């Protein structure tokens, strides 16, 4: 009996090894397609762009290896710096605004259960379902001072409408478009997180004498903190890469929105309009660096909260 047992125990490793090997092969087989796509469409282009960013191409004199010169140039280039400063300022205003609105709506929709709430949820989410490009064109029309509804609204009071496509208000015009587009999406994420909370907690809180406000502030918000953190990171990355909306509005307000309005637009301009793929790549990587530093700093300062994740 004992011998038999020892025998089988000795056998086991080899069969297990075979199974493990087969599992390995099967695993690679399943992961393979993803791996190939991942390498071909993500890693390879990134590596190629990084390679490109180390060269400089001139109209006269051709291409030469310049190592990090493009990066040195980027971080002393007023166009890149002012664009970066713009997206940072934009993040500071638009992200809190989006999150506050999304959180408020999610809490309200979580508190009321009626047919109207379900309808509202759909309507608030709707802007996210509209392609960014269409949304931006639509807002361009709404902002128009000569044929948009703003002009009607303001002419009722005999006033001239504000010029949201002008240089002084374009910032807020864009904040509005971005908030309109994304707040509903974030609201859905937060709402889903709220739905995942055990209702027994609310009952316990009520028995302890907590009101609706206290439940919201002391139970709901802390419990959905991971979701909040998630959307904060998403929106930070998205905003630093700001491109679609200003690029579309450019065709309506080229004087206000220059080709170097945001770093991404500047990279696009360098690569596709000025044929400077090298510098365009360098700007993209420099922006990637800023995004990385921004997100890392953010996660560092909120690291206590991360225990919720």
């Amino acid at each position: 009996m004992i011998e038999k047992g020892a025998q089988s125990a000795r056998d086991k490793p080899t069969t297990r090894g075979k199974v493990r090997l087969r599992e390995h092969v099967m695993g690679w087989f399943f992961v393979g397609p993803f791996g190939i796509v991942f390498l071909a469409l993500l890693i390879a282009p990134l590596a190629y762009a990084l390679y490109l960013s180390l060269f400089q191409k001139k109209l006269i004199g051709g291409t030469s290896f310049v190592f990090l010169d493009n990066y040195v140039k980027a971080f002393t280039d007023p166009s890149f710096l002012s664009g970066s400063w713009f997206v940072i300022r934009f993040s500071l205003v638009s992200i809190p605004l989006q999150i506050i609105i999304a959180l408020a709506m999610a809490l309200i929709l979580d508190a009321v259960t009626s047919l109207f709430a379900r309808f509202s949820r759909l309507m608030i989410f709707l802007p996210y379902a509209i392609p960014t490009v269409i949304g931006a064109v639509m807002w361009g029309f709404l902002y128009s001072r000569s044929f948009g509804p703003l002009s009607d609204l303001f002419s009722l009071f005999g006033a001239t409408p504000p010029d949201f496509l002008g240089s002084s208000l374009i910032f807020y015009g864009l904040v509005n478009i971005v908030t309109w587009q994304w707040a509903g999406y974030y609201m859905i994420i937060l709402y889903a997180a709220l739905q995942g909370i055990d209702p027994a907690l609310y009952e316990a809180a009520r028995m302890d004498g907590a009101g609706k406000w206290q439940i919201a502030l002391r139970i709901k918000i802390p419990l959905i903190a991971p979701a909040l953190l998630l959307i904060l990171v998403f929106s930070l990355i998205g905003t630093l890469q700001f491109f679609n909306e200003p690029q579309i509005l450019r065709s309506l307000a080229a004087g206000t929105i220059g080709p170097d309005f945001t770093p991404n637009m500047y990279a696009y301009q360098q690569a596709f309009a000025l044929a400077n793929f090298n510098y365009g790549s360098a700007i993209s990587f420099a922006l990637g660096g800023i995004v990385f530093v921004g997100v890392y700093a953010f996660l560092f300062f909120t690291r206590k909260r991360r225990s919720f994740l």
Partner: protein
Amino acid sequence: MNKNRLLAAAAVLAAATALTACSSGGGGGGATATSGSGASNCTNTIPKKDLPVVTMWGWYPNMQLVVDNFNKQNAEVQVCWTNVGQGSDEYDKFQTAISAGTGAPDVIMIEMDRIPTFQIQNALVDIKQHGFDAVKADYSEGAWKDVSVGGAVYGVPVDGGPMAMIYRKDLFEKYDITPPKTWAEYEQAAQKMKDAGGPAFGDFAANVSALTMALQIQKGAAPFTYDPAQRSSIGVKLNDQASKDVLEYWGGLAKKGLVGTQDQFTPEYISGVINGKYATYISAAWAPGYLTGAGVGKGEDIGKFAVAPLPQWDPANPVQVNWGGSAFSVTSQAKNPELAAKVAYGLYADKESLTHGWTNQIIFPLNLKALNDPEFVNLKVAFFDGQQANKEVYVPAANAYQGVTYSPFGQYYFDAMTKQVSALIEGSVTGAQAADLVQEDVAKYAKEQGFTVQ
């Protein structure tokens, strides 16, 4: 009012569809099929499928008809045409195709001011050895000069952009104004209209650098001196007195509220033109086609427009200038340059296509067969309420045009200008400062690009 708003909304929608078309169509037109019926991305259908096919990009409003005419008449080659976007949309795609080394069409429509930009990258073919002599006499010396770099010819001239002053007859009558002949009179008339409570007299926009450049050249500026025999050396003079004066002049008009500052080619501007928000529109001979395409000159404002020669600085020595104007070039990616050149020469050269172009005032032809046609010269243009615009204004302007030297970094120059004119409109710089800043910016870029700047 309501109908106008609809028109404007339609224009916005059109812009939107154009944008989506661009983003989805991408490099779609790039399939350079030179044999058989392999070209699958054509906007047009190819009638003679067994002939070799030449691909082309272009954006003229009546391109479809022109391509159909050509294909129907030609027994040797067929054209596969794609509209990949207007102006810089097309250039961006072409630029990408140049860098990639593949994806460009065989023949491409480009504005003459961009020819040096693509020539310096060896993206265009000198068509002189491909049947140039047979068509040489069809175009004026000046037309050939604009498409040449040094001794080589990089395009077949198609349309020109002699400039003039389009104005609203109804507004001029209402405020008792006669078309100004000089820029001084233009300002006086603008003041008169403003004092009487009238609309803006014109528009000074940041996004039309080519127009601003033309107006500076009219005053005597010579932005670039460039001899392709010495490729690495270029003269950049964007802040001479003439350039400064013109920026000061228009900046002053804007500051005094005499002209609007709306970006042009936008639905906002078009709706303004429709609603009589601007009394004049300083533009080129292609403008009526562009305006009618955008819905102007129909319905309520039919017959309200007229045209007068461009105001002058010195009426004793008038100077005529150009805005836009384009050519068909053969790209260096063309599989069969000989065949591609045949297409470039032949498109927009048959009587039917030319006639359609000028009767609708869509293009101002550079082909002498059309320019010397009495029917063309005496045409009573419907958009201008039957005015003989060609005879009175455009043909003399085109004949007096001297030609200009363009730079190989046109896009950068125009962007720099847009930036500074925008600042000028806002009031953060003066016209003279704006010119100095443009000079500094462009000269720095030229040096970065390896040029010796004089």
